[in-house]
């Protein structure tokens, strides 16, 4: 894995991206602004599923008409995010916040998959309910917490507080970030 990332980092495009004056900031800005589209529309649907707001709007209106916009937002986030990762793969690989972000992304992704494969299949039974069934509300709660965690962890990736080359670090950090600590 690490060998692959080191090779990735040595490719000319990766170096060009990292050293670019405008492309990197533009990618990063697109990544951040797409949050409004992706996480924003996700949260609106979660508020409906929780029965907190949009109570008289059928849930299927959200999953049929708003979800394409959410998907488009995710596509932009994924592409810009992968490119940003490509600009400095090993730095992110050893970054504790990046690792937390990836774990939360997996959790959020599993939740999306479970919701659509199980809970949403029976939507016709509760489409018009002001407050959807408990399983749907639970999935919406997990969604909000997981995506908020992804956003916060993603923001913190920028800080080097726990970087491996800043020793000493707590043993837990060195273990979680896979740091190779030289013997004193």
């Amino acid at each position: 894995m690490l060998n692959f990332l080191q090779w990735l980092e040595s490719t000319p495009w990766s170096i060009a991206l990292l050293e670019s004056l405008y492309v990197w900031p533009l990618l990063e800005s697109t990544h951040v602004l797409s949050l409004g589209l992706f996480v924003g529309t996700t949260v609106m649907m979660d508020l409906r599923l929780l029965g907190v707001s949009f109570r008289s709007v059928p849930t299927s209106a959200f999953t049929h008409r708003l979800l394409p916009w959410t998907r488009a937002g995710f596509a932009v986030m994924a592409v810009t995010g992968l490119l940003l990762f490509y600009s400095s793969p090993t730095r992110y690989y050893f970054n504790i916040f990046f690792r937390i972000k990836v774990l939360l992304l997996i959790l959020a992704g599993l939740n999306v998959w479970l919701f659509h494969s199980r809970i949403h299949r029976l939507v016709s039974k509760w489409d018009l309910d002001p407050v959807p069934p408990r399983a749907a509300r639970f999935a919406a709660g997990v969604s909000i917490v997981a995506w908020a965690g992804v956003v916060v962890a993603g923001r913190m990736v920028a800080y080097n507080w726990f970087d491996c080359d800043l020793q000493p670090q707590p043993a837990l950090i060195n273990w979680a970030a896979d740091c190779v600590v030289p013997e004193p």
Partner: protein
Amino acid sequence: MLLPFFEWCENTAIGETIRNSLWLFPVIEAVHLLALCLLGGSLLVVDLRMLGVGLKGQRISQVAGYARPFLIGSIVTLVCTGLLLFLSEAVKCYYNTSFWVKITTLPIALLLTFAVRDRFSLRKSFETSAMSRLLGAGSLTLWFVVAAAGRWIGFS
């Protein structure tokens, strides 16, 4: 002329506390970012609807009414956290073009949202029309500039 005021802002106790803390700025910034997500969502459901896409089966006034508390909540959070971030680095902001772009578009966006958009979008008879499309596009464009300029403060 304004520089002494910005220097005073930066020297306030709040500004100094945030600047001298390792984690306060990142934490406030994270809250600012979370509120941005909420703002994006509560703006987009209504603006897309006014553009004639998204939640088309519902009335504009219905969607706008439901989204409004979250729109207001997110803007209040953004302004409060934004002010704190500003106090911690006011002088840097003074010399930052993106900051001035943001701070001039923000009142225009607020005015459009609460003085104009609200008046139409909350009216029961308001349907998709040239006017609604203009409002939706205008709102999205203005808030996009505010957010983009805001992000760029950190780069320039």
